[in-house]
């Protein structure tokens, strides 16, 4: 009797397990490594948040994978005055927030007011500080006047930093709490005008979104539910993708590429997208270092590092050797810059010629200065750690003495880089699709006690470059800008204050069921066209 009951229970369990209600219908699950911090676009910063925000909110413009700007919330591309200062925007009529209230010029101006308010912890205020005046013409038309002409400025309107928030909801929060914070109610209960409505957020588990049937765009979303599932371990992500618990494995690790390709070869119904991104890895030479301040030394170090081999062995071939601060997919990329092909003999010759002679124990020195330095990165980043190991080996082979000293991420970025305590620092920049690089290379951007700003950590000073990176911002003609940035790239490739290592390739793996998925190399990222996604019912 007892056994019969037990058998019944087991049978029931099996029946439950087999009930097809578990098989998700019309749901797409997207894997992500960590929980977002906030879904309030005014104070959001990281790119996982962008993935979700793209679905909930809309912005004035959007950026296609071919790097073309298109109207999204505006009826047509904005008109720009001949002096490049005044932009006139016209909003689409009848766009509604998820609660039914219409989106108007007042909401856009509210975004601007919140971004420049010193009460809100807005991470990046760069584009907003360039605005001189925001004028509402009527409910659908408004005009923005800049302090100076600025070519890269308009592009920002394509990204989630410019998601249009509902004034009627957020203004109340701002008034009652005195500021907008990550802890505010809107952060975890956002209301936008995008193709998906916010439904539920369970910390460290998932964020669930539901289709917005009243979406204004011409492509209406068809997938009923989107789930962003948090899987904090990359191997766990791969396993869940293999099992079909995750439909999209975005930003897959380079060392998972081969395994994904094997899956496909063995008949798994998946698709894999690999395309260059606007991210590059670089080794920064601190120009205050007695040996690294010499150009010949830096060039020799570049010649002595085998980029191709590094990409092949460490990155499984997923990456492109870098020679410039601008990525090859950009219109401003200059293919003619000086390239440093692996050539240790030439590196040695360069050092000899510059007067660096081999001293005791094979370490080169010049006028009593030893060719000796430390190389650092954030510990735990396997690719960068391997880079440091290879660099040490290769650079010591040409007569340098290299000590690896890696730090845990918050120590590395928060202290070693920020307070310029490195000799050689290895990390990556995620750039916008515009080639503007003022904060990295203008001499006013060398951080010190007085200005306390800028990312010219290496301390590079060059009047010509100062002129070029400023001119690149104010010049609006793209052909002329192309010339300007061609020269910027030539100077940097000749002077090598950074050794450019490789351009990152983004890998996105998705289930073959999902149609119209298009990865996007810009900050807009892969959810930029989420309204178009369809599921193949077959």
């Amino acid at each position: 009797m007892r056994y019969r009951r037990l058998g019944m229970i087991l049978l029931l369990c099996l029946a439950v397990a087999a009930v097809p209600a578990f098989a998700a219908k019309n749901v797409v699950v997207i894997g992500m490594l960590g929980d977002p911090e906030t879904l309030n676009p005014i104070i959001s910063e990281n790119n996982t948040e962008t993935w979700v925000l793209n679905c909930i909110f809309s912005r004035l413009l959007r950026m296609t994978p071919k790097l073309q700007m298109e109207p999204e919330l505006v009826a047509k591309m904005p008109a720009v005055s001949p002096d490049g200062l005044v932009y006139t925007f016209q909003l689409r009529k009848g766009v509604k927030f998820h609660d039914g209230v219409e989106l108007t010029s007042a909401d856009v101006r509210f975004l601007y007011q919140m971004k420049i308010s010193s009460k809100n912890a807005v991470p990046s205020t760069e584009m907003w500080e360039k605005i001189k005046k925001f004028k509402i013409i009527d409910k659908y038309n408004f005009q923005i006047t800049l302090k100076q002409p600025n070519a890269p400025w308009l592009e920002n309107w394509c990204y989630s930093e410019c998601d249009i928030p509902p004034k009627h909801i957020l203004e109340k929060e701002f008034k009652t709490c005195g500021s907008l914070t990550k802890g505010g109610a809107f952060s975890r209960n956002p209301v936008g005008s995008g193709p998906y409505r916010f439904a539920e957020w369970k910390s460290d588990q998932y964020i669930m979104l539901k289709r917005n049937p009243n979406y204004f765009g011409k492509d209406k979303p068809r997938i009923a539910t989107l789930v962003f599932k948090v899987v904090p371990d990359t191997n766990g992500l791969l396993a869940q993708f293999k099992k079909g618990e995750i439909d999209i494995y975005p930003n897959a690790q380079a060392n998972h590429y081969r395994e994904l390709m094997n899956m496909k070869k063995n008949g798994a119904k998946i698709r894999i997208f690999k395309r260059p991104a606007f991210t590059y890895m670089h080794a920064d030479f601190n120009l205050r270092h007695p040996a690294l301040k010499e150009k010949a030394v830096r060039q020799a170090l570049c010649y002595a590092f085998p980029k191709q081999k590094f990409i092949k062995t460490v990155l499984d071939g997923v990456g492109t050797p870098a020679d410039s601060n601008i990525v090859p997919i950009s219109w401003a990329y200059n293919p003619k810059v000086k390239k440093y092909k692996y050539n240790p003999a030439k590196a040695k010759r360069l050092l000899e010629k510059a007067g660096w002679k081999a001293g005791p124990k094979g370490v080169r020195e010049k006028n009593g200065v030893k060719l000796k330095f430390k190389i650092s990165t954030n510990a735990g980043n396997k690719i960068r750690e391997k880079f440091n190991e290879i660099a040490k080996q290769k650079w010591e082979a040409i007569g340098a003495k290299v000590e690896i000293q890696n730090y845990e991420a918050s120590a590395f970025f928060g202290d070693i880089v920020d307070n310029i305590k490195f000799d050689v620092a290895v990390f990556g920049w995620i750039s916008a699709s515009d080639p503007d690089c003022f904060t990295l290379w203008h001499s006013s951007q060398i951080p010190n006690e007085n200005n306390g700003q800028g990312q010219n950590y290496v301390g590079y000073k060059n009047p010509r470059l100062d002129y070029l990176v400023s001119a690149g911002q104010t010049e609006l003609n793209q052909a002329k800008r192309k010339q300007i940035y061609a020269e910027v790239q030539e100077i940097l490739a000749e002077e090598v204050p950074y050794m450019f290592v490789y351009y990152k390739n983004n890998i996105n793996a998705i289930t073959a069921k999902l149609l119209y998925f298009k990865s996007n190399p810009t900050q807009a990222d892969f959810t930029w066209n989420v309204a178009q996604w369809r599921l193949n019912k077959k």
Partner: protein
Amino acid sequence: MGQKIFKRLLVSIISLAIISLISFALMNLAPGGPMAVYAENPKITAAAKERIKKQLGLDKPAPVRYFLWVKAMIRGDFGLSYKTGRPVVQEIGERLPATLTLMTLSFLISVGIAIPVGIFSATHRHSFVDYLVTFGSFVGLSLPTFWFGLLMILILALWLNWFPAGGYLTPWFNAADFPLQIRPFAVFWEHFRYLIMPALVLGLANIAGWSRYMRSAMLEVVGQDYIRTARAKGIPETKVIYKHALRNCFSPMITVMALDLPAFFGGAVVTESIFAWPGMGRLFITSVFNRDYQVLMGITVITAALVIISNFLADLLYSVLDPRVQYEG
């Protein structure tokens, strides 16, 4: 007795104060800080960083921040997380149920397997099974969790397709989709299928360790005079072991288990990460990486309090199990 407990309580509070001071100092001495998360974005200016710092209260010197923290903590306010801006208590409260269920099941599995196995190897000393168990314990102790976890996923989830590869619940799971008769089973199974693999992985190390302790405790007791007397009186062997010997084995076992009790709250970093389990271990480790001092202080102080409490409980249990032990503060 009452006075002794009071004395013990006083000592506990002083230790807690010292622990909180030391952990706060260590966290703040570590280089870097909560602002490092903004480092790789070239668009974030130093002015913006200053503003964020001020909002978080990080512009004040560390000693001032410590006293502000203590002042609030006494009122039961653990402050706001730097990362999410939400109350630390809420952050912990959201993760605690997941960790508690995981830990409870893994505890039950460990005890349920370790104790019988330990007794069996002690009573069948030097037998083939004893050697096998010994070998198995060492394997169990030396398998790294992340490797064993991935192996379980590979076999049980990917090859056999019995359980999901990771997660807590299916987001679109809705009990109402199931007919009323099987609904409780559906809910149970839905939780259980996600829970079982991480619980097994976590249990493994404990099974291995605890069964060794159980074996040696049993061996020691079985060699005592009173056991010989019991046997000499003709009491059946099973009764000797399970009635007379077993109870005396529990004192050392309780010490071992009580020491593991704070882990119920702290969770398991590696296992929770691999199986995407939304528990305390993950909250702790992400807070370490983000230098989320507030959350870290909250977890550290609560864990420390639990260590003190569980030690205290173990002491009390001794005197219950062994009347010869008198509770001494």
